[in-house]
């Protein structure tokens, strides 16, 4: 490789990106027209160049994360496998809270309404009929059924960390 080729190849990324001064660009093009190896390397540089679009919501997410000082991992958490796991854990927690709740009207998993199928379980979660269901959990916090899906995912993440 000649000194000229070396000089040209050092500047190919800038040529491909259109960031050279006109005179320098003309000098490079003049050389490339007569040098097959440098022309091939320019083709390779053009091939490797790509443009990555920033997701539209990323700036807001990053700004919020910077202010919070903690990354927002919701997307990662929201993968189908994790959501299924989270749903299982939430169901187990709610079931446990029902089973362990003292009182004459306690509903257990043997209750025919719950044992019959999934829709009844959902109904039970939406309108909890068991005694003490309105009592806040753990030191004055809201009951599980009062939390949104997002809050449940965050709670599970904190429990898991």
């Amino acid at each position, binding site marked *: 490789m000649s000194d000229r080729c070396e000089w040209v*190849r*050092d500047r190919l*990324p*800038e*040529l*491909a*990106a*259109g*960031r050279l001064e006109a005179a320098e660009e003309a000098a490079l093009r003049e050389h490339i027209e007569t040098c097959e190896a440098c022309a*091939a*390397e*320019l*083709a*390779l*540089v*053009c*091939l*490797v*160049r*790509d*443009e*990555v679009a*920033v*997701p539209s919501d*990323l*700036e807001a*997410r*990053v*700004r919020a*994360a*910077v202010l919070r*000082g*903690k*990354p*927002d*991992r919701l*997307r*990662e958490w929201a993968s189908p496998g994790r959501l299924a796991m989270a749903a299982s854990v939430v169901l187990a927690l709610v079931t446990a809270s029902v089973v362990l709740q003292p009182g004459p009207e306690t509903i257990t998993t043997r209750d025919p309404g719950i044992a019959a199928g999934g829709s009844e379980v959902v109904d039970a979660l939406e309108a909890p009929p068991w005694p003490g269901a309105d009592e806040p959990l753990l030191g004055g916090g809201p009951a599980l059924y009062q939390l949104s899906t997002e809050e449940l995912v965050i709670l599970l993440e904190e429990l898991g960390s």
Partner: protein
Amino acid sequence: MTAAPDDEAALLTRARQGDREALDALLRRHLPDVYGLTRRLVRDPDLAADAAQEAMINAVRALASFRGDASFRSWLLRIAVNAARTVGRKRSRRREVDLELVRELPAGTKDPDGVTITRIEAERAVRMLERLPPKQRLAVTLRIQSGLSYAEVAEVMGGTEGAARVNYHLGIRKLRELLA
């Protein structure tokens, strides 16, 4: 994106003093470069976004320690490389394949230099880039895809300008062999 040095220095000073507007302006200015790099290194879009967030948070925490020996952009991209490495370990566990990185090009598109680029060729080149040794891959990525000079590549990689240049040219040679 390259900022006017004076403007950048003023923003940095204000951001260090806790000025949220200045911090926002720095974030807006450099996020495309940071995400562009993490996306190219990690490939999975969600993990790349996580890495970009991680990088920005770490940069803000370390802002007081930035002395200006390197350009702010190089300093930030170095933090982004480390964040991409951290999330990259997760990716290796997930083993996801993502072809979205390759820009959508209709077959036979002519670029301004008259080089015919097909989508398949571009896809293959990006895949082959992943097979380069790590330092060569990083040097080629920073030089061609992030548009850094050799001096800036050296700042990001933590070596000399000469080493950055050698790694870049070795990477290009290896890439040519892989694509042959």
